C-alpha cells in the first residue's frame, strides 16, 4: 500500500515537469491568427487590424476564457510613438480602438486585469 502510494507520488513528480515542458511551447500563432503571449495565469492572443485591437484570453489549457469582468490596456509602439488603447469586453474577448492605424504586428505590451483585480501583462515583440 505504502509502496503503491510512493510510486504514484513519484510518477506524478516526474510527470508534472515533463507536461509543463510540452505545454510551454505555445508561442506563435493563435486561434485567430494573432500572436500569443503569456500574461500571468493566462495566455493572451493579440490581433490588430487597422485601428482595432482585439485580445482574446485563454487559460493555461488554451481554452478561451469569458471576458466578463476583465478589463485591459494595450500599449503598442507605432512609428516610434506609444499608442495607449483601452480594452473593454466585446464578444469573445477584449477590444479597443486606437487613434491611429497600428499595422499588423506592432510591438508592445497588453495588460489585463481580471475580475479579482489582479493585473497581468503579456509582451509582444
Amino acid at each position, binding site marked *: 500500500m505504502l509502496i503503491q502510494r510512493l510510486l504514484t507520488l513519484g510518477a506524478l513528480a516526474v510527470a508534472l515537469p515533463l507536461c*509543463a*515542458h510540452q505545454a510551454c511551447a505555445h508561442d506563435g500563432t493563435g486561434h485567430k491568427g494573432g500572436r500569443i503571449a503569456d500574461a500571468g495565469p493566462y495566455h493572451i492572443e493579440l490581433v490588430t487590424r487597422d485601428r482595432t485591437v482585439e485580445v482574446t484570453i485563454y487559460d493555461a489549457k488554451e481554452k478561451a476564457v469569458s471576458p466578463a469582468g476583465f478589463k485591459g490596456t494595450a500599449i*503598442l509602439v507605432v512609428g*516610434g510613438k506609444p499608442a*495607449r488603447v483601452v480594452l473593454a469586453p466585446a464578444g469573445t474577448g477584449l477590444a479597443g480602438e486606437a487613434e491611429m492605424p497600428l499595422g499588423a504586428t506592432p510591438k508592445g505590451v497588453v*495588460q489585463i486585469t481580471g475580475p*479579482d*483585480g489582479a*493585473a*497581468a501583462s503579456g509582451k509582444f515583440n
Partner: protein
Amino acid sequence: MSPFRLPAASRALAAALARMTLALLALLHLALLLLALPFLSPLARAHEGHDHGAPQAPVSKTIAPRGEASSAAFELVAIPRGDALVLYLDRFATGEPITEATLEVETPAGPATAEATPDGSYRLPAPWLATRDPGRDHLDLVVTVTAGAEVDVLPLSVALPKAAESAQAGQEAGHAAAPDSGHAGEGWLHRLAEAVTNRLAARDPGAGLAAAGGFVLGLAAMGLMRAGRRAPVLAVLVLAAALVLGATAFAYEGAGQGHPEVRAAFVPPPTDLAQRLADGAVFVPKATQRLLSLRTQVAAEGAFRRTVSLPGRIIPDPNASGVVQSSVGGRLAPPPSGTFPRLGTRVRAGEVLALVTPPVQRVDLSDMRQRQGELDQQIAIVQRRVDRYQKLSLGGAVSQVQLDEAQDELKGLKDRRTALDRIRQEPEVLTAPVGGVIAEAAAVAGQMANPGQMVFQIVDPGKLWVEALSFDALTPASDAAARLADGRSLPLAYQGAGLADRNQAIPVQFAIQGGTEGLRVGQFVTVLAATDAERKGLALPRASVVRTANGQDVVYAHTGAERYEARPVRVAPLDGTRVLVEAGVTPGTRVVVQGAELLDQVR
C-alpha cells in the same frame, strides 16, 4: 514480543492494535502530505511549469523586494518604498543611467507619469500600494519609456513586501486568503509553516514548548495504546488536534498584531546593501551601481591582430616644417614690422622673420673707402669728359660714338658707387620657408648670428609625425596607434621605415591621423603597431579583467539588472587598452568594463 505466542484472548487485542497501527500509518501519510503541500505549492502555482514573469523573491533578507524589466534598449528596476515606487532606468548595453526619460506607468489607478528626481532615479507616487490586496505578493505594471527617439514598452512585475511584515495587512491575510483562487487550501498551512519556522528562527520559547508538548502527548498516546485503552487514545488525539489548531491561531496572532516590536528586533528592515550572495554572484543595487559608475559592454567576437609596443617620439612632418638659418654671419635685427615673431606665432611662407646685417671688417672698411675714393675720382673725370664731349659733339669735333662711350662709362661708375653704398647698408632678409607656427626662436636683437645657425624653427602643428624604433620589420599595411602618457590614443598611418640600424633597431615613421591638439615635438609616445598574426576572441578593455585572490583572471558579467557574476577567463595581451578574452565569456554577454575592481571588493 511476538503476537503468535499469545493466548486467544490477547490475540484479539493484538489484531486491534495492528488495525490501529495501520490507521495511524494512514494518518501519518496524510500528515506528511499536508506538511509537504506548502513546499510543493510554489511549483503548483507556476502554471504548467513556467513562471510567467513572477518576480523572484529577494535572495537575502537585507534586500528589499523589487522588480526588474529589460528590453534591447533599456533596463528598468522598480522598488516599492513606502507609498511610492522608485524607478531606475539604464541603458541595457552600457548600464549608463538615463535621467531624462519619460516614464508612463499603467498603475492599478490608471496611467501615471513618474517624476525624475535629482539623484537620477524616478519617483512614482503610489498610494495604491497601501490599499492593495494583501494576499498578492507581486504587482504587474506596464511602463512606457520614452528616451529621446527611443520608445519601448516594458511589462514590469514588482515583488511586494510580505503581507505578514506589515501589522495590519498580516491580520487581514489570515482571513482573506481565499482570493488567491485555486490555492485556498494550502494558504493557511503555508503561513502556519512559515510562522513556525520564523518563531523557531527567532528562538521563541512558545514554539519549543509546543514541540515538547507534542512529543509528550505522542508518548502518552503510545503508552495508552499498548495498555489497550481506546478512549484515552482518542482523548489524547483530540488534545493534539486542539493544540495544533491553537498553535495556528497563535501563529496568526504572532504574525498579526501580536508583538510588532519583537519582530522588528529580529528582522531588520531591508537596506539594499551591495553584497556577495550565497551563490557567488554579486548583488549591487542600482543606487550603488551609479555611485561606483559601473558600465558594461556587450562582448562581441572578432579576429584581432596582436600588437607590439614601440618607444617613439613626435617629430614634425618633414614636408610641412622648416628652419630659418642665416647664410652669412651678421647682426640680427627685427623685421620691418618691428618685432621678432614669438614662439607660437603663426607665420606664412615667405614672411620676413628677421634681418641679418653682415658686419664690415676694419680692413674691408678701409678697402671700401679706398675704392669709394677711386670711384668718386673716376666719376669726376668721366663727368668732365662727358660735359666736354657734349659741347664738342655739337660742332662735329667729337663723334657721337665717343660721347656715348663716355656716358656709358659714367653710368657704370655711378652704378658701382651706389652698389658699394648698398652693400654697406643692406642686410640679409630671413624669410619663412613654409607656413606654420614658430616652434623654436633664438633671435635676440643685436645678437651676432653665425652662418648656418638656426634662428627659427617652423612647424605645422596640424602635420606631425611619430618616429618609433622597431626591433622587427613592420608591414606597411599594419595599422598603428600612439598612446600618450595621459591615456589618449592617436591613430597612425605608416609612412616608411629606415634600413640603417639605430641602437639595434630601425626607425619607423608614422603620420598622425586626425587631431594633433596638445601635442609637442619631441614628446615621447608609445606606438602600438599591429603584427600580422591574427587571433580570434573577444576584445575587452584591460580594466574589465580583475585578478582575484587566488590569482585567477575574472570578468564580471551583468546577468540581471542588479546581479553580477564573476566568470573566470583566459586572456591574452592584445594592445595597450584592450585584452583578448580567448575563453570563458560567450559573445553577447554584458561585461563590466568600468568599475570591475570596485565590484570585486564587494563582500
